[in-house]
């Protein structure tokens, strides 16, 4: 039993009339989940009573819980309300979930990023439910004239044993809505959880399987126009002139014009990242007409100048350099290899690594690389905007509504409170929709044509106007002594345009002599966060290097890691180690047990990998067989320590997805650049993993503990790339260092 002051996030408990149903731009049916479900017994109530910003209760006991954060497929629209319902002691089958709008007065951190929704929402969601339960109890105590402490709740019911009184939440909802918000509330003991730690179905499932409108691209409003944009064909180019004479006269076309996404004097934030800010816009009645008119544009492009842009990068003021010129993947690779030959910037140094390498019995040195990746959300970028003189109504898929609201308000010249953003369910995010330039573009277009408009990117627009996963390269060196102990470890790494180094992660802390250096190369290719940024390369590189070091040392790869972790636990080197060695070892022990490690079948080639990121620990074992010379993933075992698992089956689904996603990107995917032009612009050239390449089965196991929940959307993704590489070595006898392992020549299916 935990008593918490409700001061943190207290504004969340202010009763809000705006959430009561009036003024919702998209309307109830759009944002609400699909309840009533077949098992539901209640109809819609006659009246809703607002208890706090997170929830309202109908007179008949039906409860609406607002899901505050953007839903990108990580299932927070189900799991966040589950946490509220748990502390409320609600009957889950009488809960409707509704997507909250962006409202920074009522909710905190309405963002999908860094696998932090549950971790950072945990306390306020619990308090929202617990304070509502307290208000219901106080209402009942007043009505029944009994002490509030004697009232108990269970499954949507209030009861008082002494007097024999009982009532449903609905009967007390009206009175509870008039009770002052408590100063402090008591949270449930973990052992009393009835909803958290039980599997609950995705609240949008029934809408998904029947094709109901859910996504930004599905948004429709009467009189809405469709906009499409044309951007330069190459990074390093910009708009010169446009001849729109043919396009303008085509059927269904309303207008063709150019826009500037950001004003020259506007200081862009990290989330305003976009290489192409002068765009040609075609506005028409329908998507097909706008698409055709776009093809008829005659546009002249010219070389863009060298740009130094002052940007606000999460509070740090930095000048970011976008060099002039047309870049090439081949040149990038050569540049990165060159930089790995000379010392970089020392980020962490323990002991005397130079001396240790000099005295080593054996030195192992290997290099790893990975290409740019496009996010390729299945729902291409889009946004709806209706901007009038005094307000802006925006709706669509964005992971950072709070940041983009500021960006749009600034660009439109409207006060922040006049910009309204509704979050639609997203057809994937993976970090791409953190960068919401498409929202601002839609808003500028609507302002210009004075009409409601939906901006739609084609797949080609989406893939060639990306904020790609940076390209990285890493050099690893390990020194073994005469007893095959790892005595020194050296990583030198960098990328275009950022370094993937996390210098304080394992094996830092486990090796006496340690050196981590990095470097960066400026580029005009736009890059950004991609599911588990930086970790999505460095985990695979490090974990395949450790596999090779273990082999050279004649040790089992799991035992080798466990020995290092035991050292990091009992006698850590340095003080800034960014992981708990015991929990790290815990997932390795669990995957070892579940996969029957050491008792392999002869025909299976196994690879192991483990990594810590986004506050969670993941270890994986991957079993591969060769069929007609091609690798087939038979099975993946995945052990995860992410603290309390709110919704186990959904968490399992997310981890399965991370595994498939990681195998796919490690094996098949890449975006290459030639003379500034992305060489892949659709799924005929850009290879994503498909059904037949997915593992035949995936087994996910969670460590059972009572630690507050940590990240899950990202952590299962990075380590699997190492497991793939290590299994490939076992299967082929060949080490794979450069992603994608199967190269771009692999078969693309249609």
């Amino acid at each position, binding site marked *: 039993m935990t008593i918490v002051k409700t001061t943190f996030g207290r504004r969340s408990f202010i009763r809000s009339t705006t959430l009561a149903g009036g003024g919702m731009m998209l309307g109830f049916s759009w944002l609400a989940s699909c309840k009533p479900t077949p098992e539901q017994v209640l109809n819609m109530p006659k009246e809703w009573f607002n208890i706090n910003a997170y929830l309202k209760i109908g007179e008949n006991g039906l409860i609406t819980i607002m899901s505050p954060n953007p839903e*990108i*497929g990580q*299932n927070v629209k189900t799991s966040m309300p589950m946490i509220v319902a748990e502390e409320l002691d609600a009957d889950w089958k009488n809960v409707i979930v509704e997507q909250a709008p962006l409202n920074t007065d009522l909710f905190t951190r309405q963002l999908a990023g860094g696998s932090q929704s549950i971790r950072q929402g945990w306390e306020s969601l619990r308090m929202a439910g617990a304070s509502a339960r307290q208000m219901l109890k106080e209402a009942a105590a007043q009505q029944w004239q009994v002490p509030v402490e004697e009232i108990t709740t269970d499954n949507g019911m209030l009861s008082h044993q002494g007097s024999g009184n009982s009532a449903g939440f609905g009967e007390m909802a009206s009175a509870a809505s008039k009770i002052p918000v408590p100063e402090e509330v008591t949270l449930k003991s973990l052992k009393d959880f009835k909803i958290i730690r039980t599997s609950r*179905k*995705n609240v*949008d*499932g*029934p809408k*998904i*399987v*029947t*094709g*109901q*409108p*859910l*996504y930004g*691209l*599905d948004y*429709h409003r009467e009189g809405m126009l469709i906009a499409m944009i044309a951007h330069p064909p190459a990074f390093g180019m910009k708009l010169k002139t446009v001849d729109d004479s043919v396009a303008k006269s085509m*059927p*269904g076309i309303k207008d063709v014009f150019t826009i500037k996404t950001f004003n020259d004097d506007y200081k862009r934030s990290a989330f305003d990242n976009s290489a192409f800010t002068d765009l040609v816009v075609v506005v028409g009645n*329908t*998507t*097909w007409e706008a698409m055709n008119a776009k093809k008829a544009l005659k546009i002249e492009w010219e070389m863009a100048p060298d740009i130094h842009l002052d940007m606000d990068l999460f509070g740090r003021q930095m000048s970011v350099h976008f060099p002039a010129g047309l870049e090439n993947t081949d040149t990038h690779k050569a540049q990165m290899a060159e930089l790995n030959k000379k010392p970089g910037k020392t980020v962490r140094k323990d002991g005397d690594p130079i001396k240790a390498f000099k005295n080593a019995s054996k030195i192992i040195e290997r290099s790893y690389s990975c290409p740019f990746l496009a996010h*390729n*959300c*299945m*729902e*291409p970028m889009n946004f709806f905007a209706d901007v009038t003189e005094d307000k802006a109504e925006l709706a669509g898929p964005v992971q950072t509504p709070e940041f983009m609201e500021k960006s749009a308000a600034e660009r439109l010249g409207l006060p922040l409170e006049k910009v309204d953003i509704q979050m639609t*369910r*997203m*057809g*994937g995010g*993976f970090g791409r929709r953190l960068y919401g330039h498409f929202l601002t573009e839609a808003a500028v277009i609507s302002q210009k044509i004075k009409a409601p408009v939906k901006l739609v990117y*084609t*797949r080609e627009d989406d893939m060639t106007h990306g904020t790609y996963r940076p390209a990285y390269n890493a050099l690893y060196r390990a020194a073994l002594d005469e007893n095959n102990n790892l005595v020194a470890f050296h990583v030198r790494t960098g990328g275009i345009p950022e370094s993937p180094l996390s210098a304080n992660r394992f094996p830092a802390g486990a090796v006496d002599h340690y050196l981590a250096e990095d470097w960066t190369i400026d580029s005009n290719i736009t890059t950004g966060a991609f599911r588990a940024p930086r970790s999505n390369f460095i985990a695979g590189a490090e974990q395949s290097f450790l596999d090779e070091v273990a082999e050279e040392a004649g040790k089992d790869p799991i035992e080798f890691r466990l020995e290092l972790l035991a050292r990091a636990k009992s006698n850590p080197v340095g003080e800034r180690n960014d992981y708990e060695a015991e929990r790290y070892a815990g997932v390795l022990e669990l995957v070892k047990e579940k996969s029957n490690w050491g008792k392999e079948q002869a025909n299976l080639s196994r690879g192991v990998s483990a990594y810590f990121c986004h506050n969670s620990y993941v270890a994986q074992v991957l079993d591969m067989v060769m069929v007609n010379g091609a690798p087939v993933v038979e099975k993946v075992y995945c052990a995860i320590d992410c603290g309390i698992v709110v919704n186990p089956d*959904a968490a399992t*689904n997310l981890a*399965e*997805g*991370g*595994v*498939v*996603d990681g195998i*796919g990107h490690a094996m098949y995917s890449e975006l290459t650049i030639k003379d500034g032009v992305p060489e892949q612009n*659709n*799924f*005929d050239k850009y290879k*994503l*993993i*498909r*059904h*037949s390449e*997915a*593992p*035949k*089965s*995936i087994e996910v196991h969670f460590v059972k503990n009572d630690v507050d929940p940590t990240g899950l959307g990202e952590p299962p993704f990075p380590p699997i790339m190492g497991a793939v590489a290590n299994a490939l070595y076992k299967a082929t006898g060949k080490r794979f260092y450069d992603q994608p392992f199967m190269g771009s020549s692999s078969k693309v*299916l*249609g």
Partner: protein
Amino acid sequence: MALINLNVNGKSQQIDVDPTTPVLWVLRDHLQLVGTKYGCGIAQCGACTIHINGVATRSCTLPVSAVGNQEITTIEGLSESADHPVQKAWLEHDVYQCGYCQAGQIMQASALLNNNPNPSDEDIDAVMDGNICRCGTYTRIKKAIKTAANLKNA
């Protein structure tokens, strides 16, 4: 522009449209049936899969003028109340993550089961390989197809 008659989900529809318009955009922009999704526009991802006379077809590259009086079925018309065996199986396995590709997966899977009531893993891979799921729900899709086959054969 031309007046075109279509049979969509058992209903006759008349629309005035450029005859080269792909069925995908006729459904989405003209008939407000947005369950059929746009993913690539070149028949490479399967998000736009519908049935034409029961055959799984990519609607993003099919000109509306080519349909004639054939029956179009979209995800909205697959069942009256989400009770097609494939939809029931998808709900049972809670298959989806973002959910965007799933209408296409469901339409492809339901056509598969019409032709092959007991598909093997290899049969499923062969037919489903044209449908990309970026979230990686492939293993659940396979399980759900098998559940749907059992429901259908029950």
